[in-house]
């Protein structure tokens, strides 16, 4: 099987990055307040694409921002007029240093954004973005991406994949057609058929990465059990110290709930779409005051089952990608991995 890749070293990788940053609108993990987030960069020194520490917010805000204007309106004596907001035209942009779990999250979101309503903003951004991913060498304590229902080793979620081999070697591999075209047209280093040795090194790196996971589970077993344990008391035990903030849904690469609000000054206004979270006590609050899900553990149960059961039933894919961001960002470190495993044991 022939695999095309660029065999280079650390210096070659820096050059690859610098060429891209010089030519395109590039986003990469930038450090601020002791954490990383994807921000627009104009120089390689501003960012750290190969940092082993994952960003706090996933790559989701670059496709589904924390707040976006969807419409403008003007109310005057002649009635209400709606108008488009000024959006920048779609230009090719590149995101560096995307962890595979983030890229996989976008593939999962594609299903819901192409379902009953085609979200054209999201679609345009997806089509015009090239995702360059660096494969992790080692799993963090909160990761469990290899335990779920997709193939991490041969995934096509990213357009270009960078793997660190032995002795300082770096392999840059175009995975999708878009990635291949991007490298052909924009990189001074071109890919060639990889040698047997480099293909084996890449396989070996994956094996050592897979072995480094602390958290592993049998996904099919857990998914099957979860469909029958709606009344399990374990949901209440594990979520008892949850404080009901919105953090887990906001940092998650696949959560897509939103709220619509209007803001007005005098007679002009803007309609915004912003993040929302099903863990919030008021998520199900309706006009009139009725709230069907006011109790904490029921919201947690809905969240866990939506991620591991309902989305899979409807779209055939697990809504959780195993990045563990929810657990690490949670003020009390509640782990959805622990929750589904404990519930499935019953």
């Amino acid at each position: 099987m022939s695999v095309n890749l660029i065999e280079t070293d650390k210096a070659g990788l820096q050059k690859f990055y610098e060429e891209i940053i010089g030519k395109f609108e590039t986003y990469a993990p930038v450090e601020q307040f002791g954490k990383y987030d994807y921000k627009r960069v104009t120089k390689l020194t501003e960012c750290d694409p190969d940092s082993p520490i994952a960003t706090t917010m996933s790559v989701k805000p670059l496709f589904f921002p924390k707040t976006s204007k969807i419409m403008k309106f003007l109310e005057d004596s002649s009635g209400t007029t709606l108008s488009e907001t000024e959006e920048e035209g779609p230009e090719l942009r590149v995101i560096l240093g995307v962890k595979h779990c983030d890229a996989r999250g976008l593939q999962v979101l594609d299903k819901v954004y192409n379902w009953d309503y085609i979200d054209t903003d999201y679609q345009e951004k997806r089509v015009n973005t090239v995702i360059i991913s660096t494969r992790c060498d080692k799993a963090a304590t909160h990761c469990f991406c290899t335990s779920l229902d997709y193939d991490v080793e041969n995934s096509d979620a990213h357009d270009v994949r960078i793997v660190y081999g032995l002795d300082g070697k770096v392999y840059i591999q175009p995975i999708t057609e878009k990635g291949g075209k991007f490298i052909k047209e924009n990189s001074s280093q071109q890919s060639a058929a990889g040698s047997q040795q480099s293909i084996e090194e890449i396989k070996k790196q994956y094996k050592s990465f897979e072995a480094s996971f602390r958290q592993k589970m049998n996904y099919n077993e857990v998914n099957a059990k979860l469909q029958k344990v709606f009344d399990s008391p374990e949901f209440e035990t594990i979520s008892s110290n949850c404080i009901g903030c919105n953090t887990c849904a906001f940092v998650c690469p696949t959560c897509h709930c939103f709220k619509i609000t209007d803001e007005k000054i005098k007679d002009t206004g803007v309609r915004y779409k912003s993040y929302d979270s099903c863990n919030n006590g008021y998520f199900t609050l309706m006009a009139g005051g009725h709230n069907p899900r006011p109790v904490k553990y029921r919201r947690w149960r809905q969240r866990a089952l939506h991620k591991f059961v309902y989305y899979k039933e409807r779209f055939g894919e697990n809504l959780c990608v195993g990045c563990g961001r929810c657990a690490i960002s949670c003020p009390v470190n509640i782990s959805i991995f622990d929750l589904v495993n404990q519930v499935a044991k019953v």
Partner: protein
Amino acid sequence: MDYSKQIQEIASKLFAENKIDYFVGYKQNSFDDSQVPFLITDPAEIPKLVFTNRSVFNLANYLKPDHTKRKRVGLVVKGCDSRALNLMLTESQVKRENVYIIGICCEGVLNEKGEKAQNCVECVMPDPVVYDEIIGTPSGKKEYTVNADIKELALMALNERADYFENIFENCIRCNACRHSCPLCYCAKCCIDQETSTLYHGANTSSGAMHALMTWSLHLAGRCVDCRNCEKACPSHLPLHLLHKQNESVIYENFQQHLAGMEKDDRGAFYKYSLSDPDDFIL
């Protein structure tokens, strides 16, 4: 500072004598060597209770009704936590007979890097101010010092400081973790919660974040005990202590050296007044 054994003994005794419905303590975190809050109703879980110098979260937060449903609670508090609990008692959020307080004389907690946390270095009251049982030896009230970060910021030029804060407000994602983890934010309809109030910009804009964080900090002024629950809960790691410590230093300097929650029946600084409060800035 390892009091796990003593706490487990007290919890067993309380459940055996049927004095409590919930016990709130700490258990080991599954991701690193810190501890996280642990609510138990079943005495079989008592062996999981731990208390060391990595037990940071202010547990008085769990006395709010949606966590412990106004039932009888036994809980573990350090110095700053007990000041927050004292304020909650004064403000009638908790009935004194429904709480069994285990006070720990705190020697300071460590952050993820293993250094003593900043609020512990500047601590004014490591001993519990209200308790039913006390563990450890009291070391007495310490002298108040102005926070080092706000002293540094006060020396910056106005627009530089404004740029710094604007950057902070832009990174807020309005998750409300700060408000939900603060023991003194117990309003059922919080004015900065976007779902309960449209005053504060329902959208997650940065001007909305500025409005919300500033108002939150001013509603907490004179009541904040510097437990840093908010800062630790923030997923964007915003330095929220800057706003609260600034208010605390103005209040300490101008209003008879008032510090929140120190005495029994002490309310916040804005619930009392003195005829000699400073007035010269008013025309």
